[in-house]
């Protein structure tokens, strides 16, 4: 048997390693870095300094960024609260609303494939006496709107449903959810980390009251994020979770990360200008990758809806091959796996399990996340390499051999260990 690695050579125009894990983070766009640079050194002022030009300069830059970010999501500048990132934004939104509206009710609705920043925040609130409904998802990863309607009651104060999933890229029916919430006077928060800058998001049209976003997923810097908080129809109030100097209308104290904010603003401006063409390009590349893999390999399974999906996402299971061993064979390509062996907890992806997939399919999954700087030649290389390694690992796989011989492996009495 030939070696698992290095059978597929990279062409001259492909530089290794290839980054195809854009749901995890993205490199900064050089235009973003250019915009940020002066704010580290020359224009270093504290935007809260009201009595000298250094402060005014910083404040002005922050206000420009606020406008750029607001524009991308159809909000107004005054509705943008800066945070350290989306984990903080999600915590602030959910805990801040729960605390502020506790007289009105104690019920929160979310769903099972949310990011841990939402799920664990909800779990903490349960300890404090809040009631949380975790809606299931269908096999395609989408929630059922009827389930949502049924879960709403007169104690429901908040619905928090992500815009797009970080593992399977599935886009939830945000406008429909917003409408249902709006009709019933329930606040609607969405973790839009994967969606903003990738697909059109409009807080007005979608009836979103509160929205979390982070800069580093859209070619901005790490360590800066935003919470959009609606100012009218309705005016949303949020109890601060970090107390101090009363920055950000008292909702989030702490000196503003001015260079980061400038970068986030610039990143949002670029996204607004280029999103449409970028989405088209990434969809084409993603389809090419999918077609090549499906054409060359049997027993591949796309996880989640293809119809309601982010342009750059492909989550596929290569059944009868374990995900971590596949990652080892393609170690010049940066992707993620839902395999337990790649996680600290040794549990396979809870997102994939929520789709009703067996653990064995979850163990075999790979998430490809395409982004702005991926080139077509890279997609070709990745496809060829994955095909080669999957084929070799299947030569090693007793399960693949048994299935090929017509044995129903689900009927075997396996000894779980």
């Amino acid at each position, binding site marked *: *048997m030939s*070696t*698992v*690695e290095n059978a597929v050579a990279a062409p001259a125009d492909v530089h290794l390693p290839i980054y195809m894990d854009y749901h995890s983070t993205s490199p900064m766009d050089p235009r973003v870095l250019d915009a940020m640079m002066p704010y580290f050194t020359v224009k270093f002022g504290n935007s809260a300094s009201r009595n000298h030009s250094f402060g005014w300069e910083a404040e002005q830059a922050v206000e420009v960024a606020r406008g750029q970010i607001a524009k991308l999501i159809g909000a107004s500048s005054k509705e943008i609260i800066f945070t350290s990132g989306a984990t903080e934004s999600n915590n602030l939104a959910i805990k801040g609303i729960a605390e502020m509206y506790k007289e009105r009710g104690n019920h929160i609705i979310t769903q099972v494939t949310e990011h841990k920043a939402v799920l664990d925040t909800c779990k903490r609130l349960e300890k404090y006496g809040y009631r949380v409904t975790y809606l299931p998802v269908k096999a395609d990863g989408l929630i059922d709107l009827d389930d949502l309607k049924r879960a709403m009651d007169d104690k429901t104060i908040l619905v928090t449903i992500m815009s797009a999933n970080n593992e399977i890229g599935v886009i939830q029916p945000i406008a429909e959810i917003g409408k249902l919430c709006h009709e019933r006077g329930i606040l609607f928060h969405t973790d839009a980390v994967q969606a903003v800058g990738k697909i059109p998001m409009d807080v007005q049209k979608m009836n979103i009251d509160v929205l979390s976003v982070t800069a580093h997923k859209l070619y901005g810097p790490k360590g800066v994020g935003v919470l959009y908080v609606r100012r009218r129809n309705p005016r949303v109030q949020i109890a601060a979770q970090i107390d101090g100097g009363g920055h950000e209308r008292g909702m989030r104290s702490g000196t503003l990360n001015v260079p980061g904010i400038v970068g986030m603003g610039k990143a949002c401006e670029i996204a607004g200008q280029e999103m449409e063409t970028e989405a088209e390009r990434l969809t084409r590349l993603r389809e090419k990758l999918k077609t090549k893999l499906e054409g060359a390999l049997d027993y591949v399974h796309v996880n989640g809806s293809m119809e309601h999906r982010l342009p750059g996402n492909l989550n596929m299971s290569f059944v*009868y*091959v*374990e995900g*971590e*061993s596949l990652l*080892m*064979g393609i170690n010049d390509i940066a992707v993620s796996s839902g*395999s*337990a*062996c*790649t996680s600290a907890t*040794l549990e*396979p992806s809870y997102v994939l399990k929520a789709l009703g997939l*067996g*653990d*064995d399919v979850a*163990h075999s999954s790979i998430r490809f996340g395409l982004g702005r700087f991926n080139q077509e030649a890279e997609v070709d290389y990745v496809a060829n390499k994955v095909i080669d390694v999957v084929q070799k690992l299947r*030569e*090693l*796989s*007793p*399960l*693949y*051999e048994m299935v090929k011989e017509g044995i129903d*492996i689900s009927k*075997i009495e*396996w*000894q*779980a*260990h």
Partner: protein
Amino acid sequence: MSYSDKVIDHYNNPRNVGQMDKSSSEVGTGLVGAPECGDVMRLQIKVNPETQVIEEAKFKTFGCGSAIASSSLATEWVKGKTVEEALTIKNTDIVKELALPPVKIHCSVLAEDAIRAAIGDWKKKNGVAETADYVSTVATN
């Protein structure tokens, strides 16, 4: 996961991949693990009926890199040993040889189980009684 060079070598150049005739009386087959746990090993041995020496060993493994390496190493180690000698291979030997990280120790346990299961199958086929030593080892596992 950062693996030792030995794990990477076994992963890249797995030894003794394949299968032997399960129905042959000289062949013992061990199939251990479970797909939902993310690892399944099949280890086969071919035993000389006169000498009880394991003359051939084959494996196939569905699992992570260390599962593949553990079973590949197990086939190397059992070859040339008598059945009773092969039963003395311990998972801790595999851990040491491959420098497996703590979270991957279960892979070595599975490889030891696979050796025992293959030998057990061969003994059953050939009417060889389990040795007292082997029984007591299992009992303390």
